[in-house]
């Protein structure tokens, strides 16, 4: 069984999420592990996590999902790949189902664990917006997966990947990008090992400095609850929850968030949850591993200080 992984690059290197996708592919492959990667992505890391061969293509400008799908489908056909793996991202989540249509494949999104081969090809994914999980059997000969962060342990395979140049035919897109606003240098919510989120309990956008300071200390991304993004205290792309971004970090710290069911749905697959809230009855404490009842304005600076002394 050959496996194909689509690599996204950032600062001339494969994104960390793409390396997780490689590790996932290497763990299930019984044949070749092939990566299809833009030529600006350094290939050393790909071999390290188990890629046998890299198909390098040259890109000019940003790819649309239709173009990614076309590149990946052509690579999958050329390599007779039976499993195609994407790391979850906004673009990949759209490209994966398109690849599914091109290849006549079964598609599963938000996969959180390794497949179970004892019952065919069965993957586990979240449903009901984080309130439950389901195991889904993928029936078609080809499978396309988009995997969530932490779906696999990173195991080094120490291979050296063979590089092949790859020239898929890619049609131009009718979509024109007029303007891009993106904060660079920040850790992305979906990539972060640690997320610090603030809620209405922080009383106003002017109090986010201490959240950012805590996040910086922990090398964490910052998030917020829905009311906070609705009131424009924070940008929409920081909204964590059922109708926002769903995160699965190692550590999620919620400050001044009461824990509405819709917010919990977005964080339920976090490994460890810390809740800091002045209301001892906040429902979030029931979904947390560690809790502090008290005034965030008092606790957060002290917590940050204590962390600085330890880390």
């Amino acid at each position: 069984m050959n496996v194909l992984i689509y690599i996204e690059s950032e600062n001339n290197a494969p994104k960390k999420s793409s390396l997780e996708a490689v590790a996932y592919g290497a763990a299930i492959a019984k044949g070749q592990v092939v990566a299809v990667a833009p030529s600006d992505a350094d290939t050393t890391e790909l071999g390290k996590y188990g890629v046998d061969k890299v198909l390098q293509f040259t890109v000019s400008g940003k790819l649309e999902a239709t173009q990614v799908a076309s590149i990946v489908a052509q690579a999958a056909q050329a390599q007779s790949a039976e499993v195609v793996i994407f790391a979850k991202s906004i673009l990949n989540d759209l490209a994966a189902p398109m690849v599914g249509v091109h290849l006549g494949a079964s598609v599963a999104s938000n996969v959180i664990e390794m497949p179970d081969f004892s019952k065919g090809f069965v993957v586990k994914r979240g449903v009901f917006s984080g309130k439950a999980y389901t195991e889904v059997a993928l029936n078609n000969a080809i499978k396309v997966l988009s995997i969530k962060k932490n779906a696999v342990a990173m195991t080094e395979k120490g291979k050296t990947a063979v590089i092949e140049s790859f020239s898929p035919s890619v049609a131009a897109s009718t979509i024109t990008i007029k303007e891009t606003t993106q904060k660079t240098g920040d850790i992305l919510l979906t990539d972060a090992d640690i997320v610090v989120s603030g809620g209405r309990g922080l009383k106003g956008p002017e109090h986010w400095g201490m959240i950012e300071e805590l996040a910086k200390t922990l090398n964490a991304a910052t998030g917020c609850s829905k009311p906070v993004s609705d009131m424009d205290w924070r940008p929409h792309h920081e909204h964590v929850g059922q109708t926002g971004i769903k995160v699965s970090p190692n550590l999620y710290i919620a400050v001044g968030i009461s824990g509405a069911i819709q917010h919990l749905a977005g964080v339920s697959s976090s490994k460890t949850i810390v809740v800091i809230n002045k209301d001892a009855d906040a429902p979030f404490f029931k979904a947390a591993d560690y809790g502090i009842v008290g005034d965030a304005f008092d606790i957060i600076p002290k917590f940050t200080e204590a962390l600085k002394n330890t880390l």
Partner: protein
Amino acid sequence: MKILICISHVPDTNAKIPFKDGKPDLAGLTFVIAPYDDFALARAVELRDQTAGKLTVLCVGKADTEPTIRKALAIGADDAIRVDAEPTDAFFVATQIAEIAKQNQYDMILMGRESSDYNGGQVHGMVAAMLGLPCIVPCMKLDLNGNVATMYREIEGGKEVVELPTPFVAGCQEPIAEWKIPNMRGIMTAKTKPLKVVSPVATAISTQVASYEVPAARSNCKMIDAANVGQLVELLKNEAKVI
């Protein structure tokens, strides 16, 4: 402008999902238009008004979805199509939507970025691939100037302003429009608006749910005294081992 809005009929997102015999037991729950679809519907009504166009609502589901479809008609859709079948998976639903779209040539096919029940987020991408159309997800703003649409789409850590001509597919999310609540006149007229029931086209079964699992509740929240944040640092480091 001919607009198609595709909706899912899902349990109210405030509801706790009960499980019985290892399956979701949805019988007692209130059903709604999936929240993201509801945002897309609200904007679709505005764009229909602006272009003096026609808005068709499409739902793949059995007869129990009709109250949800009538609600979309009450909010402002002109007519409805129900594909009479259980929406078994994204590929099945996308196949049905693409079939209806081929027959009717819509300028825009809108839906939510994902449903709140199975959270696949695949239908828009599949429909676009089946029809050879461009697709924008997640679309947070959608304005029309003639047949050219300007949209905001979310990207990791920010947003992009994009432009493209119709036809296209878009998976929408807030703040594309405010949810609309049907008024009495809407509710009355919805009863007589056309709702056509069609049979599904056959497809192979691409994916099947094998089993469900309810995540274990976090057993016990360990409470730490507010005066002793050092203990939290200690526990995160040595017990949880996450820092």
